[in-house]
């Protein structure tokens, strides 16, 4: 078990190393273009040369990469061109805002999708199962930007219940969080529900469930005590991996609702070629995704003894 965890962590570190190399090559392969991005399009060649020399860009590629990586790991992400401030100062508050958004999305999405998935999978093919399955296909087919438009049209334009944007300029406001969370939940819950349903339906066909039913246990007890424990192993992995999807989803939702989060920051940095901010955002996004992937693998092994002792 310890060896397995160590292996997974080493693989994750190697993945992050390759990702950092790819990012570095994509964005900093030619020092001249870095200077243009930092100093702006109207800088003279002389200015660029001075900047390159002052910031160590005249050294060979590999020594630049190692220096960059060293500074990055120690938390020095460089200066943001657009915000005229250290990247770290811009980044952490934005990441916190996205964490708040993600927390509430998961706090609503997980109980909802597990409950619906179990209800649907309990009696495969029954009326309730059909309704839940079709609903989850339909909601998964409406991408975030479309459900954001449709929900704003109904709740903001038509009913006037909620504010249409969520910039949170005058402090934290619950009402501004409702629509972003709703959009993310609506797109994400269908997939988890379907996975839970499939897992539940499979467990319900197992011989030990039939045994429990035949010895006369009430249905509620069969489901809660016998089926659920095995049926919830697969959804655990699916839910953990949803964090990767959520990182894509928040970009769209934060852009649409003008929420000051990490996804909007990444998009803004990319559109403005704010090179050091892009690097930091992309590395953090991949780090979160890779870390949750590793956690999902390890958690799955812990939860499923058949794999742990194989």
């Amino acid at each position: 078990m310890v060896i397995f965890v160590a292996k997974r962590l080493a693989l994750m570190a190697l993945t992050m190393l390759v990702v950092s190399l790819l990012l570095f090559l994509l964005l900093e392969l030619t020092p001249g273009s870095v200077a243009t991005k930092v100093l702006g399009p109207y800088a003279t060649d002389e200015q660029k040369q001075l900047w390159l020399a002052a910031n160590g860009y005249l050294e060979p590629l590999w020594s630049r990469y190692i220096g960059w990586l060293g500074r990055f790991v120690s938390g020095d992400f460089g200066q943001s061109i657009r915000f005229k401030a250290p990247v770290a100062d811009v980044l952490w508050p934005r990441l916190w805002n996205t964490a708040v958004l993600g927390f509430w999305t998961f706090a609503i999405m997980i109980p909802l999708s597990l409950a619906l998935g179990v209800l649907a999978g309990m009696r495969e093919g029954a009326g309730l199962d059909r309704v839940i399955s079709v609903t989850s296909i339909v909601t998964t087919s409406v991408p975030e930007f479309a459900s954001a438009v449709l929900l704003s049209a109904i709740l903001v334009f038509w009913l006037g219940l909620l504010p249409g944007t969520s910039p949170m300029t005058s402090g934290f406001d619950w009402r501004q969080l409702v629509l972003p969370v709703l959009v993310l939940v609506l797109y994400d819950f269908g997939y988890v529900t379907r996975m839970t349903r499939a897992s539940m339906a499979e467990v319900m066909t197992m011989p030990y469930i039939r045994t429990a039913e035949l010895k006369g246990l009430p249905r509620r007890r069969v489901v809660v005590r016998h089926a659920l424990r095995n049926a919830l192993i697969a959804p655990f992995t699916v839910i953990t991996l949803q964090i990767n999807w959520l990182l894509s989803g928040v970009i769209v939702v934060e852009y649409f609702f003008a929420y000051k989060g990490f996804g909007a920051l990444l998009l803004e940095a990319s559109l403005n070629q704010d090179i050091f901010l892009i690097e930091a955002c992309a590395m953090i996004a991949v780090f979160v995704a890779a870390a949750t992937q590793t956690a999902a693998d390890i958690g799955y092994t812990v939860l499923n003894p058949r794999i742990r002792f194989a």
Partner: protein
Amino acid sequence: MSRAGGTGEPAGAQPPTPGALRRALGSLTLLGESPVAMVGAGIVAFWIVIAIFAPWLAPFDPNATLQPFAKPGAAYAAGAGTFWLGTDQLGRDILSRLIWGSRTVLFYAPAATAIAYAIGIGMGLAAGYFRGWADELLSFLANVILSFPVLVLYILVITTIGASGLNIIIAITFASAPGIMRIVRGLVLDLRNREYVAAARTRGEAAWYIMLVEILPNARGPLIVDACLRLGYVVITIGVLGFLGLGLPPPDPDWGGMINEARPVALAFPHMTVFPCIAISSLILGFNLLADGLREISLRD
């Protein structure tokens, strides 16, 4: 044509149905077994018909600026015709832009998916069949690319190489091929130990021939289901890129781009964004239902 055998005509009177056509007809009747798949296929077919006949169906020129901010159903003041779905802030007819926009998405989504499949299948066959270091390397690279949140990858690639039709296809291929490779690799690992592969190897057939002719056709079932799902995702991707302003350059209509362009005024004039949203969601729903129905059918036998 498929009923020719039942009408009592002499068998030699008609040329036999070519094998490929008969198989296509056979799979169409198989589709009839799942009502979900039929509905999905119907929605997709609807949009394909719209895309093909766009020049005849669209009431106006999609890029002509006629009458700004017209409500749905308003009549064209300076000429004949009605804006059934209204116009946008530049005065372009939304229905016509939706109809022409279906061409954009139904060209780029299948094109990008097909290219991603060609590359993903090649990589997956090589990794699964040859195993060894080729497998290790390809699988590791796939893991690295798949560890990116997918939209982060698209934004990085598109903002670096620029937004154009070709670059969108390149970005989608880059992001989807590793996932396809993983699926193909898994299927090949299972199929490579079958007897008919061993027989082909004993006959001395070349490796590429075994992979493409012996293994690949037997892996088609799960791949067809995955392709339908993936088409839905690619439609979402093209829509998202258009919505974020990273899609096809204006002015030609593109559903995601239409939503993005109308966003500043959307809270006052919802019809400008709602109709493109319904269009794109219905197409994605079509692909998802088709995939779901096909999976159901493939599990049945």
